């Protein structure tokens, strides 16, 4: 043989070693002083990078990696990885998935005295169980295209107005947005978390006006942007991002009040706790909260005293007066029934 080639055994060993190395990336990460956190992508990612990751990297000399995973998927992946290395150290999750994850036991119990900034959190937003801290407040209201619709909606009930026929977009309860929509319709007609029948009746009576129903809220946002849909229940920050693009899409807080959604930061079991606690504390820092409340993330602050730009007042919930206008939902109760609601929606709601 003219060229020295590796023996079969060497090749085998090499291949197996390479396969094993692929299986254990966590070890290498831990040595680099790296913290991994998820965001929802888009404005959230930019906001968390500017507001939390960068100040933390500068202060502690570590590396913070932000990856984009939606809340429900993150919880499922963390559950799947339980006992091993979790997909992230710090998890960003919505109310529903947060409580689900706490129930599954994938988050660490926090000692709040290790997060000094937690004392700044609005009483209304304080965690009932010490498994996470709220990092941002959002509200769900009505997004409508002011360039195409003459009449500005004022109430959830206005969605049924004849001038919006064929223009309305909805989300399925598989997303937080869709679950909240269903519940706000239920409340409009005398129902609540324990009795969602009026909500389903309301959705059915709205169907003649509905142009499309989306399983993915991001698609609904695209439809609003493209004018395929002109009015829809929507998150305030998604609406604001559309508005800033000059689409004419505006956010309306319905007169019944917007519905609050909190985003939570939690630390997964198996994470590097010390660094993760720093991340949580940094997120609640007044300056970080101020950065995240502005462009391009528009995430409502969870602590008092953060000023938002004039054109965002009433949209990005920030002041105690804004909080008065926000209604909260009973998520433990919602989680109990959510699977049934999704199944029922699959069966009964067809455009």
């Amino acid at each position, binding site marked *: 043989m003219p060229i020295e080639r590796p023996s079969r055994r060497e090749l085998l060993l090499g291949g197996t070693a390479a396969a094993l190395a692929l299986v254990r990336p966590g070890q290498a990460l831990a040595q680099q002083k790296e913290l991994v956190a998820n965001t929802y992508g888009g404005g959230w990612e930019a906001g968390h990078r500017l507001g939390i990751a960068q100040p933390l990297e500068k202060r502690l000399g570590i590396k913070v990696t932000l990856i984009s995973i939606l809340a429900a998927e993150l919880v499922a992946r963390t559950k799947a990885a339980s006992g091993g290395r979790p997909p992230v150290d710090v998890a960003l999750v919505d109310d529903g998935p947060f409580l689900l994850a706490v129930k599954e036991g994938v988050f660490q119990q926090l000692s709040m005295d290790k997060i000094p900034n937690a004392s700044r959190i609005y009483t209304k937003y304080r965690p009932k169980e010490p498994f996470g801290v709220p990092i941002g407040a959002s509200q769900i209201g009505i997004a409508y295209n002011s360039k195409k619709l003459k009449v500005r909606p004022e109430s959830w009930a206005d969605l049924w107005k004849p001038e919006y026929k064929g223009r309305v977009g909805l*989300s399925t309860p598989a997303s937080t947005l869709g679950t909240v929509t269903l519940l706000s319709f239920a409340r409009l007609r005398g129902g609540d978390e324990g009795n969602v029948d009026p909500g389903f009746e309301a959705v059915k009576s709205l169907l003649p006006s509905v142009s499309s129903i989306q399983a993915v809220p991001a698609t609904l946002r*695209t439809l609003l942007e493209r004018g395929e849909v002109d009015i829809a229940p929507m998150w305030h920050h998604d609406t604001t991002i559309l508005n800033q693009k000059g689409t004419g899409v505006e956010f309306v807080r319905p007169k019944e009040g917007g519905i609050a959604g909190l985003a939570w930061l939690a630390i997964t079991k198996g994470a590097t706790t010390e660094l993760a606690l720093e991340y949580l504390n940094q997120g609640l820092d007044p300056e970080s909260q101020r950065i995240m409340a502005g462009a391009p993330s528009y995430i409502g602050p969870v602590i008092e005293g953060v000023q938002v730009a004039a054109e965002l007042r009433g949209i990005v919930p920030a002041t105690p007066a804004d909080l008065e206008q926000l209604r909260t939902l009973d998520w433990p109760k919602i989680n109990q029934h959510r*699977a049934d609601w999704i199944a029922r929606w699959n069966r009964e709601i067809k455009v």
Partner: protein
Amino acid sequence: MESRDQGLTLSDGRGTLRRQAGWSRHLRLWQLVLPASLFLGMYFVVPLGMLFWWSVRVPGVSGLTLVNFQRLLTDAFFLETLWLSVRLSLEVTVVTLVLGFPLAYLYTRLGPLWRVSILFITLLPLLTSAVVRSFAWIVILGKLGLVNAALMGSGLVEQPVKLLFTLDGVRIAMAQVQLPFMLLPLINAMEQLDPSLERAAVSLGASQARAFFRVTVPLSAPGVVAGAILSFALTISAFITPAMVGGGSFTVMPTLIYQSAIVTLDWSTASTTAIILLVVALLVVWGGMAVARRYRYGPSRA
């Protein structure tokens, strides 16, 4: 090196010696696939085993149970969804076959520049993610999209045609992305064909069309089977395209799996749904292969 081929050169069938050589050869081959086996074992067999395990368990109940299967398989909506998934995947497979077969035939008879263009255009969609592709379909198929603008601009229709968030829209979008999976095996099969076979049939008095259908089509059957299996399997397991291009207007099996696995964390239901989908898909593929074998070697030859 010569010792390595012992197993092959001993062709006079002298019992044990040959078997021993065969065994050691097998062993050597197995060593070669060891890394791949480890990989498959860890990332395919183990997860599949876990799937089975979850499907015969109910949280809070000890022991194995079939209640998950019983509950789902007696649920009319579940069966409807299953049927929709199978039907949709079969339809998409037929569409890709109808589009792909002439294209593959053309490919084998064109020059290199055309060949590259055909491959490039059909493979291009695979270079983007399903999410990006689906957003593009929203732009193309929407009420105000390209297709409707063209149809209305040319006066063919008065009102926009509803394509986005319908089954038709999903069929179009899925067919586009599955086309290469049909086309490549077809091209592969057709390139193995000797063009002189078709010419021989014609010279023996068959019409051009008859030669095509009696010679080229049956001989490309292996490519059709391979392409159809790929296209069917990939369509029935697709989640993002039906969710985004289909909107929330109908439910397919992967939607159900996503809802229970991710949104409500009900892994027993998710696993059971996945197992049922897997078994049904395998049955359809197996049935298709049986039919294809009959078509190729069966009555038509007798």
